[in-house]
């Protein structure tokens, strides 16, 4: 069990002024199995009204608007989260049970369809099918697929962009957690395993020291459903544990973008992001 404090700051700088800016932030952690939010808040400068709600995926969203002219927009999300994900035995459905359950529920079925972001190359689909062809249950298959994908992608920041698709990243053979997650989702869905995109944070130290603040980043991983949802971090090849703080879920990155919005005025010239995590107890 860990108590983690997260501070996530995003700063947009505009050439000239922006105004009539309407946005949504998905930067606040949510309560879910293994995770309880003790406090969370969003500070926006220039200050404006906030409209919190939960979206279809259960993510806490804050709508906000800045209607006065501004040359900079700053969004700071701060939260204190208690994380407790003890290792437990996974529910292991058979292939037939898994399919039967998914076909009866919209909330599972919609995670079996590819999106433009996850659509796999033929090579990825084949790799996934080969793994699924050996006598493993869905749980072991899913984990083997995630690891096989990770083996083939070199973790290199700056090669792909925020808008990259799984296909593009696969062709490059390089990418970051977002790309590895998209590719793995595409592979899992290609063999009929429901799988969803998860955004959040990961404490960079394996054994975080209490009271020390660590520099971190936004992180992405996935959950597949093989009888129950199982969180797995393909980038680090680890099950999701007490170092992970979950923020949002969706079909792909487009469902969880931390800040999205429209505004009138000059194009944003700069974007500065900073994430810090402190273990408090």
């Amino acid at each position, binding site marked *: 069990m860990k108590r983690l404090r997260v501070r996530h700051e995003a700063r947009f700088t505009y050439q000239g002024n922006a105004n009539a800016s309407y946005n949504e932030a998905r930067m606040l952690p949510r309560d879910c199995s293994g995770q309880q939010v003790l406090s969370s808040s969003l500070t926006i400068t220039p200050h404006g009204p906030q409209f919190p709600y939960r979206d279809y995926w259960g993510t806490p969203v804050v709508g906000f608007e800045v209607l006065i002219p501004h040359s900079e927009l700053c969004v700071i999300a701060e939260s204190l989260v208690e994380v407790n994900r003890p290792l437990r035995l996974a529910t292991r459905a058979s292939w037939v049970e898994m399919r039967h359950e998914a076909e*009866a529920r919209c909330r599972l*079925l919609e995670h079996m369809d590819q999106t433009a972001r996850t659509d796999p190359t033929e090579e990825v689909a084949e790799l996934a099918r080969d793994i699924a062809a050996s006598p493993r249950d869905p749980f072991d298959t899913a984990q083997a697929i995630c690891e096989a994908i990770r083996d083939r992608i070199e973790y290199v920041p700056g090669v792909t962009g925020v808008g990259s698709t799984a296909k593009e990243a696969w062709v490059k053979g390089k990418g970051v957690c977002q790309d590895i997650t998209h590719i793995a989702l595409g592979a899992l869905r290609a063999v009929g395993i429901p799988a969803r995109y998860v955004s959040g944070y990961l404490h960079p130290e394996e054994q975080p020291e209490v009271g020390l603040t660590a520099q971190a980043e936004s992180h992405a991983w996935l959950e597949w459903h093989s009888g129950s949802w199982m969180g797995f971090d393909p980038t680090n090849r680890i099950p999701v544990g007490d170092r992970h703080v979950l923020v949002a879920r969706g079909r792909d990155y487009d469902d969880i973008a931390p800040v999205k919005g429209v505004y009138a005025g000059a194009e944003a010239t700069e974007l500065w992001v900073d994430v810090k995590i402190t273990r408090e107890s």
Partner: protein
Amino acid sequence: MSQLFANYGRSTDTGRTPAWDEMFAATGGGNEAEQVRPGYADLYEALSHMSQEELRGRADALASSYLAQGVTFDFAGEERPFPLDAIPRIVEASDWARIEAGVAQRVRALEAFLADVYGRQDAVRDGVIPAHVIVSAPGFLRQAAGIEPAGGVRVHVAGIDLIRDQHGDWRVLEDNVRVPSGVSYVISNREVMAQTLPELFARMSIRQVTDYPRKLAAALRASAPPGVEEPTVVVLTPGVFNSAYFEHTLLARLMGVELVEGRDLFCSGGFIWMRTTSGPQKVDVIYRRVDDDFLDPLQFRADSVLGAPGLLNVARAGNVTIANAIGNGVADDKLVYTYVPDLIRYFLHEEPVLPNVETWRLEDPGSLDYVLKNVRDLVVKPVDGSGGKGLVVGDRATPEQLEALKEKVSANPRGWIAQPIIQLSTIPTLVEGGMAPRHSDLRPFAVSGDGDVWVLPGGLTRVALPEGQLVVNSSQGGGSKDTWVVGTRAGEAPTPVVPQPSTRYPQAQGSIHPGHQLGQGDTFDDDDNRLRQQIEHQQQSLGKEA
């Protein structure tokens, strides 16, 4: 014997069951007057005293009246008077009782379905409709989840398209619960017909259509956010270039409310405001004639200038009512259509009053093969098209068109349905050569604001002007007819049509579905849309995830 009907014959199509003619029980022999169906007796009598020249004179006067009033449509870049045929369609009281009950029932069921599909999804859980039909429907908008419409109404206006088959039975062809259009023609057709055939208005008891704007305004006010005493209602139009702009102006004028465009609205502080010369005014109800995709660039197409950024979150906060609601497209999806009879049984515990048209779901085993092999005998339609958009009539298509269609259907069976080619009923229509039978359909309009569904007595009768043509859209050379619902004569009580209880989902066993209330769609011409200018940019997504 009327001179006008001297050459009136059945459509020249052979080899098919003949279409049901709504005026004559049979043609081509015997005494013409004796074959006239009872509802058409007065009309026939009036026409029998008229020469073709006289009727044509009246029809010309009608057309020039429309041109003068600006009731026109754009045909190949040319402004033409909206083609209104001088011969009305008559719907007898007993037929109307069935249509009214059937349309209202359909709207109640679709309203309950929408509340469920954006809520608990009981119908999926109980196996009434498969999960894949929902999640694959282009009109299932996840942004709509969590918006609780005032009074539970999502379908404020519905247009339910009906046809009459070869046996004279009314059937539902499609539901329109997004942005249904065409009601302005119902209103203006009636005005000009009163001048065209005044003698009949004196003799017959024709039910009024002038109530429509008042009923719509009342429904919109009733659906205002709770606690708003004097709601401000506006009509939101995509603008003057939209093919239904005439309708938007007419409805705003007749309801006495403002007609606005996206640029006239802005969100601030959790409310939506209209810019006026005396400062911003809060807006409570938006009767929008802009498609979902263009309504809020923050949620949907970021390049749209036809809506207002932030609008959805104002609706989510319960501070504005969007009529019709966002996400209704899942209910008029043509694959969902095939499940509507069961949805009626499940949600209302009633048997459907009006049957569907037989429809192939191309995902069913064997269906796709059958349809591909028999495509010449079928009508194939895209599931999210409305008003005949993208539809292919097998025996009218060229071999190239059919090949292209087969390819598209095979690539995406979920995106298409197929139906038999039905001979729509015919009604006498004045064409170049005189009076001739022409195929037609009927779009009744239903309005709901507080849970009660009101069906406008009448509706838009569309008629295919080319001989034998089965598609009645104005973009395909279609015209319209005034639709006269005749009242019962004094002392004769109308027989109400009461839906039969459903045996499959009886009341007692059905679960209680709280919050299922009533509600309504577009296809006469779809509202077209312009793109947002380049003055706005999408906020860069907040950095790449590591």
